[in-house]
């Protein structure tokens, strides 16, 4: 009984007074916004205009500078959601649930971008708009996992129930992440193997790595910007809900 009251009061206290978190979010917001804008701008300028064309793919390879960062973000955000879901189960802190809920649409967008930009890259290079290869298919599965997560989360009147249900989906779906990652090693696939790997020298010219890393940094910062906005939005929504319940009760 004592623990139940404790968990209950963390939730109540957090939503009644998320001031500490909001102060922190407000503090870092301008910085991450500035980082997002500068890194993405610099990455685009370098990637589109400065670095030379590829020997075999010509200028079409430049899609890499949006395709790879989107794909990495799609995976990264899913891992964040899975970790936040686990933390929500273990510690029941509402912020964990909120981070997971707020991140899902962002991850879904990045997954969508990965699929679309990959398709636009594949059309001239592979001669096809779509292929059921291991990596492409598992990224499509990831997209459906995101959609399922978002749907489950909103399916219940009680936001905590929604958080728990979607958390289970997120944790079950985590197996897809290593599948995406290693699919190009495990199966004979059309999709090329990893460009940047911890264990090998990069398979791309060093001048091309800078815009790639800049875009990744910019996308991470962009994720944080949108996350903060959506977290504030979710906190407001919970307070609205609590106020409405309180006012009906009186």
């Amino acid at each position, binding site marked *: 009984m004592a623990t139940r009251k404790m968990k209950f009061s963390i939730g*109540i*206290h957090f939503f*009644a*007074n998320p001031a500490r978190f909001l102060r922190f979010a407000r503090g870092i917001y301008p910085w991450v916004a500035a980082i997002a804008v500068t890194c993405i701008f610099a990455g*685009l300028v370098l990637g*589109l*205009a400065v670095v030379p*064309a590829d020997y075999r793919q*010509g*200028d*079409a390879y*430049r*899609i890499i500078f*949006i*395709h790879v960062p*989107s794909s990495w973000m799609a995976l990264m955000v899913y891992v964040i959601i899975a970790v936040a879901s686990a933390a929500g189960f273990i510690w029941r802190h509402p912020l964990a649930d909120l981070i997971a809920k707020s991140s899902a*649409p*962002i991850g879904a*967008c990045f997954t*969508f*971008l990965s699929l*679309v*930009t990959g398709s*636009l*890259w594949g*059309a*001239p290079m592979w001669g096809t708009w779509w292929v059921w290869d291991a990596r492409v298919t598992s990224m499509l599965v990831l997209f459906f996992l995101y959609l399922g997560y978002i749907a489950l989360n909103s399916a219940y009147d009680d936001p905590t129930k929604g958080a728990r249900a979607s958390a289970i989906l997120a944790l079950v779906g985590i197996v897809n992440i290593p599948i995406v990652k290693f699919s190009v090693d495990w199966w004979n696939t059309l999709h090329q193997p990893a460009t940047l790997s911890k264990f090998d020298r990069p398979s791309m010219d060093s001048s091309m790595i800078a815009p790639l890393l800049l875009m990744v940094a910019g996308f991470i910062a*962009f994720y944080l*910007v*949108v996350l903060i*906005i*959506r977290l*504030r*939005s979710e906190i*407001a*929504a919970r*307070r*609205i809900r*609590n*106020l*409405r*319940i*309180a*006012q009906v*009760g*009186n």
Partner: protein
Amino acid sequence: MEMSFFEMGGYAAYVWPAFGVGALVMIGLLVLSIRRLRLREAALKRLEAVGGGRRGHSGAVDEQKQEEVAP
């Protein structure tokens, strides 16, 4: 093979839509998220004003009462 920047070596039909959909989706996500935040913060302000007026209490006491009542 000198082509303009916009022609992207003949691959313009693939490169520009790729970056275009990227900008669309990311800016769209940002804009929609900000809009939703503004709507909710406005609704919250209205609710807090109504709640405070009805009971005639200061904000601090209100918060406490709502803590007891809210599930």
